[in-house]
């Protein structure tokens, strides 16, 4: 059974059919890559599933439950989390605070008004442990706005990971970082995701990353799904290479 299933999911912006009747499925435990040229509808699809956008029509089922009308908060509680293409962090809070806030929210403690945050030792320890996993222990006390771009990308994922998601969307986790940094970032993310059995959907433009780190690939084009398959199948798919590169594979 699919962990996530969308049926005829549609989102139009005026004349622009950003997502056009998409049937998209993600199986549990999979690391799936979502590829396509700019404007193909990848981020819009993720925005619809994560709740940032409301669908015009169609249905989103997560773990067999219809979450189409759920709020962002409801979807997070159901187990859907995401990182962002443009890093979205709490820049004036420390890296430790960034992760701790996810844990406070996950545990339903963020609304505690009259008790000091420092009293929740277990949450701070868990936040430190998460930072350690992502190789950011040395940055714990630094403001999130003051660390390097690659570290910010990792922290962005760490904040989402700390929510204990069943399904994690990673929107271009290596965009804006140097080529040299991409593999270490993806190695870190991939090892954490796979070791924890988290199902992940990676939106990525870098084909090396897509082919090296995913189990399955879905290619989008003009708001629809153009092709779907294993990395080898997609590599050999003529319509995909034509769409993405402009010339058929030789």
């Amino acid at each position, binding site marked *: 059974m699919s962990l996530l299933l969308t049926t005829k999911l549609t989102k139009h912006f005026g004349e622009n059919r950003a997502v056009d009747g998409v049937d998209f499925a993600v199986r549990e435990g999979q690391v799936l890559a979502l590829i396509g040229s700019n404007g193909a509808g990848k981020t819009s699809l993720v925005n619809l599933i994560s709740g940032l956008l409301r669908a015009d029509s169609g249905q989103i089922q997560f773990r067999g439950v219809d979450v189409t009308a759920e709020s962002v908060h409801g979807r997070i509680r159901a187990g859907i989390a995401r990182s962002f293409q443009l890093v979205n962090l709490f820049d*004036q809070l420390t890296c430790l605070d960034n992760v701790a*806030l*996810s844990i406070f929210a996950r545990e339903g403690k*963020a609304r505690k*008004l*009259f*008790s000091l*945050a420092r009293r929740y030792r277990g949450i701070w320890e868990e936040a430190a442990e998460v930072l350690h996993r992502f190789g950011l222990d040395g940055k714990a006390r630094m403001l999130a706005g003051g660390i390097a771009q690659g570290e910010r990308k990792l922290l962005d994922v760490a904040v989402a990971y700390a929510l204990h998601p069943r399904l994690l969307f990673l929107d271009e986790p290596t965009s804006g970082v140097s080529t040299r940094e991409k593999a270490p970032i993806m190695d870190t993310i991939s090892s954490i995701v796979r070791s924890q059995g988290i199902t992940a959907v990676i939106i990525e433009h870098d084909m090396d990353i897509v082919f090296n780190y995913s189990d399955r690939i879905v290619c989008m084009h003009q708001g629809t799904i153009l092709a779907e398959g294993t990395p080898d199948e997609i590599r050999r798919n003529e319509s995909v290479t034509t769409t993405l590169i402009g010339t058929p594979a030789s």
Partner: protein
Amino acid sequence: MTAAVLSGEGRSPVKVVASAAPVVVLLWVLPYVLAPYKTLLLTYGLVMAIAALGFNLLLGYTGLLSFGHSAFFGVGAYAVAFMVKYLDLTSMELFIVGATVASAFVTALFGLVCVRYTRIFFSILTLALSQVLWSLAFKFFWVTGGTDGLRVPTPRLLGRAVAASEDKTTFLVHAYYSYVLVVFLACVALMWVIVNSPFGKALQAIRDNETRAEFVGVQIWRYRWIAFMVSGVFTGLAGALWVPLNGLTTPDILYWPFSGEIVFMAVLGGFRTFSGPIVGAIVFNYLKTYAVGFTVYWQLLLGVILVTLVLALPTGITGTAGQLLARLRRAA
């Protein structure tokens, strides 16, 4: 640096109390050292510091600039005046309870409308709603006393009234000052706990990045609404403490320039630090009083100071002092 002060999992309460103790002792002995008039000014300053502290929960910690806090201050003051006029009450403790309930009710109502918006829209909405209250106080003169306002006699503190032999100024300078100081310290302690609570962290997260805060599961609207209420109640409480000191409440305190003064206090002291609004309120109070005595163009003088402050010292008095201290430490 200053942002880091707002952040972190928080300083130990023991260390905070230890570092604040000398200031508390100083505030306690000042009435015995200062001339009565200056102590009265300090009392006004402490009262306004409670309002500024509440205001800054929105500006400094939630990223919402309210131009309508005069409304909550006025609600607190008028609640006390109505309790005197219609219920013939004189107990300061009942005044505080009444003002707290009234300001909580009004902020809850205003908040339902305002916190759905941010930036200029939020500021304008708070401004507009405060002007509605101002016009009600202005027009319903048979209830509010109109421009003449409502008189509030010196209250009983913990059941104790001004003794027949005691002059009112002495009562205000000693008994009432001590009362205000205790309430002020309680408010500071409570606000410190709030901004260092998980809820306080969530507010700072909303300030920094609303979208991300939503995507870690913080319910933005609800958190802003609660912050708005807490902020308004602090300001309403300040209004309740202010009115016996002033002896009279008029629609002036509901008018928008009064909201501007609260903004000024936070900017003057530094809205990015916890203590900034407190320092700003006390300094502003002296500044305004002496500016009024110094020139008839006192508003112009305050305007020049505000412009200079924003351009030269954007982090306010405490922010600048913190930076200088850090520089001195590095040099040592």
